[in-house]
């Protein structure tokens, strides 16, 4: 096995060669927001537009045939990356759309069930005001707001698995939260704010024991660790492409075909149909059932290159590299007085997104000083506002690493934090 060498990996990423803020080296520590893209991904998209750009799954010409082949080959590669079957992979715009697709499956099935004259709906997706949906207090807004909307429309109740003070799921009340009336349990695999890696298998088992549909948000896990998707124990899993070297504009829903084929479509229109009459239509099986309209072909092709890049590195090696870098970052942050990590401080069941506060400094100001030194981090509530409230902080500064980061990047962030403390006179 080759030694994992971030300095060599960096050379594959053109953006990491640029300078920022008056000629300083870019230190990119915001991969939990979006990852950078290697040459091979950028080139794959370019090649597609230069050689075979066409609308897929229609057209009788050679370009359409080649584009369709490339688009579907990407699906095979992406499915293979998570040990799934291609027919179980639905392309979406992003993971937010994938979660909405799932939430809308419930509200659409419920609405179709209530109106007369429709074919029977899958009872697992029909909600009444006796039912409940369970999420956790560490969800990204994308795995919270769609469920709030679903509950508002159906009268179902929304419940939240609480958190411990060190940023783990508090499972003590799991059996009472998830009860016979629970219809869906949707949990993040790795928190984008806290970095916590959750025991999703146990939560999904509890969901299944009461007949609820289990959903996992794997946006922050699939890019960073080997995942065999069925081993998560969920019925449906979502994640996005842009956080794992792929282009923006593509996300994924994995589901058991039995479920995907039984739920109502989300976005309707061209390409997702079976037969269209003037007054009604029937729909294709998944994945086409959920892929209405002209598709994101170049993005799928870019994703193909992205999973090939990650596969060549080896996801075991990616995970080991990030685990060691996370341990280093946690150790270094612990040495800075006034810094408090929000989330697990022990490098166990923990990913590489590390949120922290600095006494006397607002995260925006910390981020600004880091930016003035070429260090890119995220500041704010990270689309997990309720999670911030749970820890009594309005917002945090977050550093997050990926395959191209090394300890020198962490060191740059640490000296930036100290510089911010000095600049604002809080030490």
């Amino acid at each position, binding site marked *: 096995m080759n030694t994992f060498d971030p300095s060599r990996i960096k050379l594959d990423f053109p953006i990491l060669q640029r300078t920022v803020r*008056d000629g300083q080296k870019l230190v990119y520590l915001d991969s939990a927001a979006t990852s950078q893209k290697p040459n091979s991904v950028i080139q794959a998209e370019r090649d597609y537009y230069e050689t075979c750009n066409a609308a897929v799954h229609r057209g009788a010409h050679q370009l359409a045939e080649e584009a369709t082949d490339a688009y579907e080959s990407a699906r095979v590669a992406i499915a293979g990356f998570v040990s799934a079957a291609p027919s179980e992979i639905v392309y979406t715009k992003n993971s937010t759309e994938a979660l909405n697709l799932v939430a809308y499956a419930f509200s659409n099935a419920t609405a179709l069930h209530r109106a007369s004259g429709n074919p029977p709906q899958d009872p697992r997706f029909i909600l009444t005001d006796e039912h409940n949906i369970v999420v956790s207090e560490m969800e990204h807004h994308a795995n919270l707001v769609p469920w709030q909307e679903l509950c508002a429309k159906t009268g179902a109740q929304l419940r939240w698995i609480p958190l411990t003070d060190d940023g783990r799921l508090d499972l003590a009340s799991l059996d009472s939260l998830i009860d016979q009336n629970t219809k869906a349990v949707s949990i993040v695999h790795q928190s984008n704010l806290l970095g916590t890696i959750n025991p999703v298998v146990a939560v999904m088992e509890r969901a299944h024991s009461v007949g609820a549909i289990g959903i996992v948000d794997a946006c922050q896990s699939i890019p960073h660790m080997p995942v065999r998707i069925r081993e998560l124990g969920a019925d449906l899993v979502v994640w996005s492409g842009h956080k794992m070297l792929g282009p923006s504009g593509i996300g994924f829903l994995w589901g058991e075909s039995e479920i995907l084929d039984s739920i109502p479509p989300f976005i309707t229109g061209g390409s997702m149909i079976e037969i269209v009459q003037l007054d009604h239509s029937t729909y294709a099986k998944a994945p086409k059932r959920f892929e209405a309209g002209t598709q994101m072909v170049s993005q799928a092709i870019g994703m193909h290159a992205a999973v090939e890049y990650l596969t060549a590195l080896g996801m075991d090696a990616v995970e080991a590299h990030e685990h060691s870098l996370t341990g280093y970052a946690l150790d270094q942050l612990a040495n800075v007085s006034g810094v408090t990590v929000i989330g697990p401080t022990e490098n166990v069941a923990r990913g590489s997104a590390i949120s922290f506060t600095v006494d006397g400094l*607002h995260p*925006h100001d910390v981020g600004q000083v880091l*930016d*003035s030194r070429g260090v890119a981090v995220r500041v*704010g509530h990270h689309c997990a506002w309720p999670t911030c409230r749970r820890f009594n902080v309005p*917002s945090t500064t977050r550093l997050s690493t990926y395959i191209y980061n090394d300890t020198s990047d962490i060191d740059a962030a640490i000296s930036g934090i100290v510089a911010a403390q000095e*600049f604002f006179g809080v030490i």
Partner: protein
Amino acid sequence: MDLNGLYQEIILDHYKHPRGKVVLEAPLASAHHVNPTCGDEVTVEVAADDHGHLVIGYQGQGCSISQASASVMAELLEGASVDESVSVREAFVAMMHSQGNSEPDEDVIGDGVAFAGVAKYPARVKCALLPWMALQDAEIKAGLMAPKEETR
């Protein structure tokens, strides 16, 4: 990048020693504004004295730019007429939207001139404007000024 150009002494001073950060006893109206991208928030209260001049109070939490801006605004506009507050706000907003290419008039916006450097950083413009927009909202709610299209 010139950190001192962004965080001028006046800004740091107002951040550390905020002026006018008080709760009014009998506000005519208040407006709570948040910056949803970062969670900064400010609540501005207004009342009018016997001459119809502004009495301003505010509370807030957030970054140095948003909180210093609230302090500068409260100090500058306390006791001003509503018309004056409108023209000062227009001048401040225009400066913040100038991308750093304006020559602000200290006679009009006082310590607000310190924010000229902030205008070069698009992500921070909203921080600086947050309390000013809240004040405008509070003045409208209080019936001190008519809702109207204002430069934003």
